[in-house]
């Protein structure tokens, strides 16, 4: 009974120790540099199509729905741009990207490291004299922290472009009106807030996935469990961090 109560505390402690050991080995650049580049490609570049698709549709749907909600009011059309652009910058580009990547990147990392653990590949790295944490975990977490903001910027551009495109195509409002609205209530802090969020989400998703994968136990069942837990827990902590950052920074 006590063990079950202490299990979450043990998990939190193990997670922080793992991250501490990962960042303490940051000087071993030679060990993880090529792996870091590979992970940036896998986490960032290979995620571009799905992030683009989700961002474009989110921006487009947000624009159509905002136009629908405002159709009977007497507010000017430019307000649609004033709502869509900050919504993408402050919330949707970062959160939608994070949810997609929790599934795509988080699950992949957990499954990859979990399989390496159960097939003794991590032990093999250790007995060769390599620091498996600096070799496997640090490049993935750093790649997440670097590539998530890049994907966020990309999602913002595509999402706003999607909204602008559908507004013009459906005759909801003109490009000029959309841009004018966006400029009207633009706060210079908005993109910075989104960037802070995306860095935080990048760290949360990759670090949780690494933790789950690295400490996988059992065989195929253990890998499946780690993968599921990584995706679910990443989403939960992304939402918690989203709220905390909004309360703290806005």
């Amino acid at each position, binding site marked *: 009974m006590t063990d079950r109560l202490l299990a979450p505390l043990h998990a939190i402690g193990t997670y922080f120790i793992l991250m501490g050991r990962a960042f303490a080995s940051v000087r071993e650049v030679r060990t993880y540099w090529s792996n870091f580049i590979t992970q940036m490609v896998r986490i960032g570049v290979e995620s571009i199509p799905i992030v683009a698709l989700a961002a474009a549709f989110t921006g487009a749907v947000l624009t159509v729905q905002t136009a629908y909600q405002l159709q009977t009011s007497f507010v000017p059309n430019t307000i649609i741009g004033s709502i869509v652009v900050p919504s993408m910058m402050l919330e949707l580009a970062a959160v939608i990207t994070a949810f997609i990547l929790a599934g795509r990147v988080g699950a992949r990392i957990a499954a990859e490291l979990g399989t390496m653990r159960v*097939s003794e*590949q991590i032990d093999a790295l*250790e007995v*060769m*004299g390599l620091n498996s944490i600096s070799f496997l975990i640090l490049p993935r977490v750093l790649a997440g922290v670097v590539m998530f903001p890049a994907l966020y910027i990309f999602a913002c551009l595509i999402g706003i472009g999607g909204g602008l495109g559908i507004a013009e195509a459906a005759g909801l409002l003109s490009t000029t009106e959309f841009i004018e609205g966006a400029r009207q209530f633009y706060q210079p802090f908005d993109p910075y807030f989104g960037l802070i969020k995306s860095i935080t989400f990048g760290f949360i998703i990759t670090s949780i996935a690494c933790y789950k994968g690295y400490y996988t136990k059992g065989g195929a069942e253990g890998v499946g469990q780690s993968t599921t837990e990584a995706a679910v827990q990443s989403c939960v902590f992304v939402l918690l961090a989203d709220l905390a950052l909004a309360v703290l920074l806005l």
Partner: protein
Amino acid sequence: MIQIEHLHKSFGDLDVLEDVSLNIHEGETLAIIGHSGSGKSVLMKHIVGLLSPDKGRVLVDDVDICSVPYERLREVRKHFGVLFQGGALFDSMTSEENVAFPLEYFSSRSPAEIKARVAECLELVRMPDVGPKKPAELSGGMRKRVALARAIALEPKYILYDEPTSGLDPQTSNTIDELIQQLAEEMNVTSVVVTHDMHSVFNIADRAAFLYGKNLHWVGPINAIHDRADPVLDSFVTASEYHVGTHPTASSPS
């Protein structure tokens, strides 16, 4: 020399090893034998510091690897080559890349020298043509031989084998046994072989250490294993010999 002193290990409520002491001498081939679940692999993982004992210590060339800082442990580990049960080859790499991996990180060889050493190691394990193949394209025995090539790439002082012949057909098992003997002779390495395959043990080992009931039950030269008056060891060895067909009466059904 590897010295294991009064080692205790448990996982939760399960005691696996109790007060195990064992010396492994330079240049010998020691077989750690015992039933499944007797703690053989757990003992082997202590030798390279993959597990920490609850009590006791492991000395490798007089370095207590249970208490040294991690960086020092990594240095000690560079003297080891380990053949894991499933090979533990990196899936994403070809056989050549797997063998080259430790050389790229821990040797100052040029790319051409690494390539030559990789070819030499693959030749040594009689797998010269599998270089471009990935582990998924190899059979179990081939994977183990490529893993062995990787384990010897840096010319280690100690080689640990975890169930090297498990899951292999008798002919492939014999090939692995021959390789273990060949490497022990040619490279003058100290070998520790965790196995329950007595046929292998008689082929390759100089000494055997029998784990039973959490303890080290018997240690001795391999040719003394039949001179026992020990019902537990006798039962294990006889059952194994019947199983592999090496016992004098195994082929004559009653």
